[in-house]
């Protein structure tokens, strides 16, 4: 670190010095704790059997079901979650603060509780489900639709929180400028607000999708564990662990790969957007 000055000659920001040990040691522990399990997965993975595992129909079904339900859940969350975030950020209605707190409750609620709660509403004897059954003959629990609903319940708050924050932080005067140009509120939202918050919507959707993909507790409670219809990858992993630990590890690796791919994709997309915005800002300042 003593030769830092030579390297820092052309740099404006001073390089921070070596971390003091009361910070360095816990930091190393934390990093090890987060990384070692992943290493464990890689070490213990039955690499040979993975190809055959992936061609097994039940595994393929679980994987496809997971991807499909997570995607549908994310789409639905976006379509209704962005308007909800707009209302939370922009409306002045009494009780809105309470609503905001309740809407984000699923973030901290144990997912199993969420599943039970969904059953009380949409279960065959639930307060809404009863009528769906009586009048339309529609039963939701233990179907793929139930999987989607469970995932929406636990994951939509991620998107709402992200978009709410972006809308609250956005400069309202752009919307005023649009209004003076003759754009009504809906057009202002569509053509000015949405482009402004697009990065937040995207990152919120990625979080939402990742959370939906990993959803376990609410799904198994509300949708059960039926291969082909409600058995998603996390459920398959859990089930496999009881009679075929190797398969469980392999399936976990698949989920890990999907998650890493999404994370990397979102990161690079985000960096691309940041670079574009940053260069734009730099250009605006420079000239």
């Amino acid at each position, binding site marked *: 670190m003593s030769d830092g000055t030579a390297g820092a000659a052309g740099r404006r920001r001073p390089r921070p010095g070596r971390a003091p040990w009361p910070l360095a040691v816990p930091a190393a522990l934390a990093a090890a704790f987060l990384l070692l399990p992943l290493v464990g997965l890689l070490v213990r993975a039955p690499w040979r059997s993975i190809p055959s595992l992936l061609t097994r129909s039940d595994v393929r079904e679980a994987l496809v079901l997971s991807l499909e339900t997570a995607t549908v859940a994310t789409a639905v969350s976006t379509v209704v979650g962005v308007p909800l975030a707009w209302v939370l950020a922009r409306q002045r209605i009494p009780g809105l603060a309470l609503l905001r707190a309740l809407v984000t409750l699923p973030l901290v609620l144990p997912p199993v509780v969420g599943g039970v709660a969904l059953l009380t509403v949409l279960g065959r004897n639930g307060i809404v489900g009863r009528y769906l059954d009586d009048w339309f003959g529609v039963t939701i629990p233990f179907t793929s639709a139930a999987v989607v609903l469970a995932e929406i319940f636990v994951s939509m708050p991620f998107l709402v929180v992200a978009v709410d924050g972006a809308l609250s932080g956005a400069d309202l005067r*752009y919307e005023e*400028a649009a*209004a003076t*140009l*003759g*754009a009504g509120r809906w057009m202002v939202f569509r*053509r000015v607000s949405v*482009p402004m918050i*697009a990065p937040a919507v995207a990152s919120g959707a990625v979080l939402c999708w990742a959370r939906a993909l990993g959803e376990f507790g609410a799904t198994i409670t509300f949708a059960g564990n039926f291969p082909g219809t409600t058995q998603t990858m996390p459920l398959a992993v859990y089930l496999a662990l009881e009679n075929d630990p190797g398969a469980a590890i392999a399936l976990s690796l698949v989920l890990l790969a999907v998650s890493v791919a999404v994370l990397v994709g979102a990161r690079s997309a985000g960096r691309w957007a940041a670079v574009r915005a940053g260069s734009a800002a730099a250009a*605006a300042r420079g000239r």
Partner: protein
Amino acid sequence: MTADGPAPRPRPGPAAPTCRPPRPGAPPILPVASGGWPTEEPGAGLDAAVVVERAGFRLDVTLRVAPGETVAVLGPNGAGKTTLLRALAGLVALDSGSVRLGGTVLADAERGVSVPPHGRGVGFVFQDYLLFQHLSALDNVAFGCRARNGLSRRAGRMVARPWLERLGLAEVAGRRPGRLSGGQAQRVALARALAPGPGLLLLDEPLAALDAGTRVDVRAHLRAVLADLAVPSLLVTHDPLDALTLADRVLIVEDGQIAQQGEPVEIARRPRTDYVARLMGLTLYQGVLRGDMVAIDGGGALRVRPSGTVTNGTVTNGTASYDGATNDGATNDAATNDAAGIGEGPAPDGRVLVAARPAAITLHTAMPAAGPEAAVVAARVAGIEPRADGARVALDAEPPVWADLSAAMMAELRLAVGVPVWARISVDALEVYPAARAQDGPR
């Protein structure tokens, strides 16, 4: 396009704004002469009484702006200038009063009418441009046409492109705002406000965010656009130069009230408040005129050119009635007595304002001859503020005096704080006018 029959409700916008390209060969609309209000025609122009109340603040401004007229709104920070524009645009609700544009009621607090901003057909140019970052310069300009007139993307661009060309922006049409310079961005913002054919143009400090060089350029564009504009426009600024060069009329707003209004020349020569005087580089005194002397309120007196109708010919000259005493008190007693003595005659008199030009005031180390055309005041240097080409010297005297000296004079006089000097205040350095507003300027 909608049929332009009798507009039933103020839904589509009062002035029925239509997107149109700029008129390239059209003769510039002549700015309506001062007074601004050519006829009693109620249908034309902006007619507004704006009252907006906030905690500890009240904006109460009544104004009329004729078609083609540009009114500059000048005032210190927090005076309510921007609030005034926002109220006219419908971005702030009126607590009382009304806004009429071209005979259409845009807002009337008593009747509970308020056309929303998007229905007003008012163009707004913001200090920091507020261009939509996700749209190219061309699409920014086309935005209003697409929003207000429902034009297709292509039709909107066809209207927008001539506007960019008119403002010298053809080559940056495809750029995003982030890749425009400040001057370009503000010109795009101007084109964006003009393209939908607004019935009123509001400019909120359009040049404030620009550096000096760019400002000259954008100001020239702005002047050309305003000269050609057939609708009323309001230009908020705190730069007197903008107000004096771009506007047909200037409105001074202080503490939410109109402090003064008039033609630029009038404002520049006869400020009514300290704020305006400072802006124009003048020193303002209040006092009582008797004959050719004004007894200044805080003490002291100034010799002025006898104004208007009256002069009592007997006042031959008071040849610096100050006896060379360095004692300030004595000097001023003498001056006051002198003024009182002269003031026997009938008065054009009464309360007046005196605006002094610091550049026309000279300082001397030896007592100069006053002559009939000047007063000489004993003073002490209270402060020296360096300027580009010399310095402004604040003098402790009765009345307090400010003098602008060239660098050469500064060197010659070797002034320092505390040094006693003589200030010679020529009558030519002073503009004297009644304190009471005859009529509140053109309304």
